[in-house]
């Protein structure tokens, strides 16, 4: 790593001499993101190296931590004296919380001058979720969404049609089991993984206006019977259709089981398509989670929201940091990203048959067709509510709590959060 950097620096120094351009004062930026795993880690490292080449005098140190740990770490280091200059963030409540605490720099000043660049490069609809009280705080570099993936070979094998509704899924489970398939592979060891299910079920079963009120820190009550129903359905679905021991299974194992062809259905992120493309040797397809026949909610929303980069308020080099954010979210980076990382990019013209696989193009269409994206539930709600909620679901799946008991705890946590929010 350091060798690479040294040699790059030597090249930089040489270029400077030859071209006679005096390099600006040396600037060091810290970039913090959430992909310690390949190929994304290398992709970002390569793009950053390219950025350093194009911007002599700026060096970028990169660090990365996975998922749940990333959230813990980020919250803590943003308040510390060594906050990173540029960091990954989800849009919505996760980002809003950081903004509220004054740790994120508004991008308004930069974007005013760059309006043209923004329109040329990024789908504006994907910038909106990064707005807080009228100002933009982040730029998206990945659209994501959760979809139900079908193992088409399994459906052919047992002679079933793809389900049109949630009830169809339930009805198909016995058939799959009899033929040795796990109908729906499911894991609940990690909070975030459960939250995607609960979030989707809530959206389908609770009316949108109620959800909107409840998901706000200041007004969340969670008293609608639809929430209990959502958990009852989840419990039912897991008993009826899922593998044994979900609480002891993590998401990567869950996905491995699907890829190994042992399951008929799996709820995955579009960002995970590349795993399927690499390793699954069966035909597959994806769709937005099917509607509930009698649901009071919106039957065509999707969990998932743009994810992108923000600049820390404490950054000493906001201009350079903004350059890096621009570089990472630009159309140029995006066109390469789709092929390498499998992310569905929000950049203009990034997901086309030339740059992306058929599946990715289809995913982008499915995202566009959904009636709006809902933030991942674990990022939409206050962390206290999330913990109570997801711990409760784990215990519910373990037979220790009932759905209404879980929601009673959630209501209590929501009351505490309302109190804190009103201070």
């Amino acid at each position, binding site marked *: 790593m350091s060798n690479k950097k040294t040699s790059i620096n030597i090249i930089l120094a040489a270029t400077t001499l030859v071209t006679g351009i005096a390099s600006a004062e040396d600037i060091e930026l810290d970039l913090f993101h959430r992909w*310690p795993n390949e190929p994304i880690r290398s992709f970002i490292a390569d793009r950053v190296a390219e950025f350093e080449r194009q911007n002599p005098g700026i060096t970028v140190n990169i660090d990365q931590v996975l998922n749940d740990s990333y959230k813990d770490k980020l919250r803590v280091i943003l308040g510390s004296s060594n906050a990173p200059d540029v960091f990954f963030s989800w849009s919505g409540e996760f980002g809003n919380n950081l903004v509220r605490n004054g740790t994120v720099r508004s991008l308004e000043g930069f974007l005013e001058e760059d309006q043209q660049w923004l329109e040329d490069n990024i789908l504006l609809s994907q910038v909106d979720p990064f707005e807080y009280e009228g100002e933009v705080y982040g730029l998206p570099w990945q659209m994501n969404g959760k979809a139900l993936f079908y193992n088409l070979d399994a459906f052919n094998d047992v002679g079933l049609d793809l389900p049109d509704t949630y009830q169809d899924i339930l009805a198909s489970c016995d058939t799959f089991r009899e033929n040795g398939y796990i109908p729906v592979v499911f894991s609940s060891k990690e909070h975030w993984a459960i939250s995607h299910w609960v979030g989707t079920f809530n959206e389908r079963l609770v009316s949108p206006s109620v959800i909107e009120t409840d998901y706000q820190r200041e007004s969340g009550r969670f008293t609608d019977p639809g929430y209990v129903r959502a958990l009852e359905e989840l419990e039912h679905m897991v008993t009826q259709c899922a593998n044994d021991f979900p609480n002891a299974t993590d998401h990567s194992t869950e996905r491995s089981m699907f890829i190994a062809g042992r399951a008929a259905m799996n709820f995955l992120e579009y960002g995970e398509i590349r795993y399927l493309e690499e390793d699954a040797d069966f035909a597959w397809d994806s769709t937005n989670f099917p509607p509930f026949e009698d649901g009071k909610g919106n039957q065509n929303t999707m969990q998932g929201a743009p994810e992108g980069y923000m600049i820390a308020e404490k950054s000493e080099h906001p201009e350079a940091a903004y350059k890096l954010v621009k570089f990472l979210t630009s159309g140029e980076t995006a066109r390469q990203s789709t092929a390498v990382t499998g992310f569905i990019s929000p950049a203009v013209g990034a997901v086309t048959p030339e740059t992306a696989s058929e599946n990715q193009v289809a995913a982008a269409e499915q995202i566009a067709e959904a009636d709006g994206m809902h933030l991942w539930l674990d990022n939409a709600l206050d962390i206290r509510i999330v913990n109570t909620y997801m711990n409760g679901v784990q215990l519910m799946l373990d037979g220790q709590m009932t759905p209404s008991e879980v929601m009673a705890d959630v209501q209590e946590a929501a009351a505490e959060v309302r109190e804190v929010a009103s201070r």
Partner: protein
Amino acid sequence: MNFQLDTIKSDKNVPRPDSHVDDGRFSLNGLLSRAGYTATSFFLVLYAIVVIYPLFWTIINSLKSTQEIYTSSWSLPTTWEFGNYVEAWNGGVSSYFLNSFIVSTSSVLITIYVSALCAYGLLKYRGKGANALLLFLIGGLLVSPEVSVVPLYELMQVTRFHDTYLALIVPYVAYRLPITILLIRAYFLTIPKDLDEAAYIDGYNSMQIFHKIYLPLSKTILITAGVLTAYYTWNEFLFAIIFIDSDSLKTIPSGLMAFRDALQTNWGVLLAGLVISATPLIVAFMFLQRSFIRGMVSGSVKG
């Protein structure tokens, strides 16, 4: 706290009482104890298997592909994937290793030197409050590091130690000082005073006496204390995950967590990383068995 032993006796030289077994005559008591011995032997072997099998399994499976670990984790590898070790080493384990080495070595050297210095000072000091001072210095024994994690975290921010080697070295030294001072002081007390006097007459100043007489004479206890400190720092987990953010600075216990996350389900490489991380301490133990064991015992109060 008064339990202190620093010898482990060799089995050969210790005369043992004889049992009923080898007196050559048949007896009921003898028969019973034979059955007892068989049962006991069985138990010891069982325990040995419980200890050794997971390690054996880890080594064997570290040489397999992930697919094979899934399908046949009991059997020997069909193809021996030595590449797992290369991949693990290059995938970060080498840097965790280096970091652990740097942090442990620095912590040990600083702890030992500062403690010895302090023990020497305590020995020489004859003024008021000598006892109170001693109590103050070893009182830290009663504070477990977990208790102070939140303020320490802030302290690391203020001192700007956070996310540097110092964020680990300094707390490690601080929490190992009390026991080390206690051990070294006890040893210094056994060094005859005449030596000081003689050295003094030879024109040594007190710093020279410390360096040229006390330190060399106390090699045994210094090694013991060093081994104990190294053992603690090599395995410390809580500070390691809180005070270090950068992947490039992580020590083995916290680094392996990141390593697992980065690998996702590449199990063969993960297991190879575990084996690499575990090996040095085990090898060192084989060589330093005696002083290590002695160290464990002297430090039994706060292992």
